[in-house]
């Protein structure tokens, strides 16, 4: 979906930003900060989350903080639903993202039998 949204808006994004902690913002405004917010929330290690939350509010505002938090919550749930029920990729998505998944190493996330 990130690739699709970038194509639609004509923005150049580096999809490595999704899988690589050190890959920076991926060409997305405040991308590094949003990634740091997601990582700190998932890690639940206290102080870094407090700090990054404050920086995010200062940079993007309260409504953005809420919407970013909601996306984190959403995918924390959907990832578990996908993984626990063993759904595969849809055939069309599988074919259309083979190059991308190989490049980003996402295939390695597949559970073994």
């Amino acid at each position: 979906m990130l690739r699709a949204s970038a194509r639609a808006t004509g923005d150049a994004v580096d999809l490595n930003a999704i899988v690589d902690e050190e890959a920076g913002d991926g060409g997305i405004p405040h991308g590094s900060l949003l990634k740091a917010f997601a990582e700190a929330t998932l890690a639940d290690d206290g102080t870094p989350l407090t700090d990054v939350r404050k920086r995010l509010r200062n940079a993007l505002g309260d409504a953005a903080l809420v919407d970013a938090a909601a996306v984190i919550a959403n995918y924390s749930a959907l990832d578990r639903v996908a993984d626990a029920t063993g759904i595969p990729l849809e055939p069309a998505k599988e074919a259309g993202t083979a190059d991308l998944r190989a490049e980003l190493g996402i295939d390695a996330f597949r559970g073994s039998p």
Partner: protein
Amino acid sequence: MGLLSYDAADVVVREDLAAAHERAWLRLARAGTWFRAERRLAIAAETRAARDCAYCAECKAALSPYAVEGSHRAATDLPENLVEVVHRVATDPGRLTHAWFERARQSGIGDAEFVETVGVTATTIAVDMFCRAIGVAPHPLPEPEPGEPSRARPAGAKSGTAWVPMLAPEDRTAAEACLDNVYVSPDPTFVRRALSLVPREASGLFDMVDAQYLPGRLIADVAGRHRAIDRAQMELIAGRVSAVNGCFY
């Protein structure tokens, strides 16, 4: 309803989002399709307890999580096989395997019970994760309401695509009309079908998704801006969360 509130937050939480979370809490408090409210709330409590389970931490740190010997630190009277499902889904979802699922089934958990367990676990994690992200304490779990599970299984659900049977749009009947908010296109994605063996659980989850992410009718509008962050920013967060969770989907 008054089951939960974001009044203590430093930020204003969108009304539709707070309402969706309140509906989620209400669903936890009521009988589901296969479990009474008490069991659904025990699953929610166990989802929270998994974060402090030493055995889960050991498994998470291990290269081979299923080779670690030990037992979960349970916080409820849930049967051990359900505790195993809840804790693994909560703490190490990216390394769940088909063999693990089959062991859960062989331990006596029905496929629809498994689906409802996953739905309740995911619901609890979503609301708790949102609280953590915005810096408020987790909401107290609600009190159980009386009621019996309906035990309604979709007759058209079929095995073979995922580990659990799923209900294709063409196979659903009026009895599964609650899936209207889930099956928003003629060929819904598999993640929208994943909990369809328990239609009410799927419907409840996607009631939250509409508020947390985007309503289904807006998802294809990849150039539109419907939240305070733009779509690329939303997808970067979504992608990063999934990468950290090790989710290939």
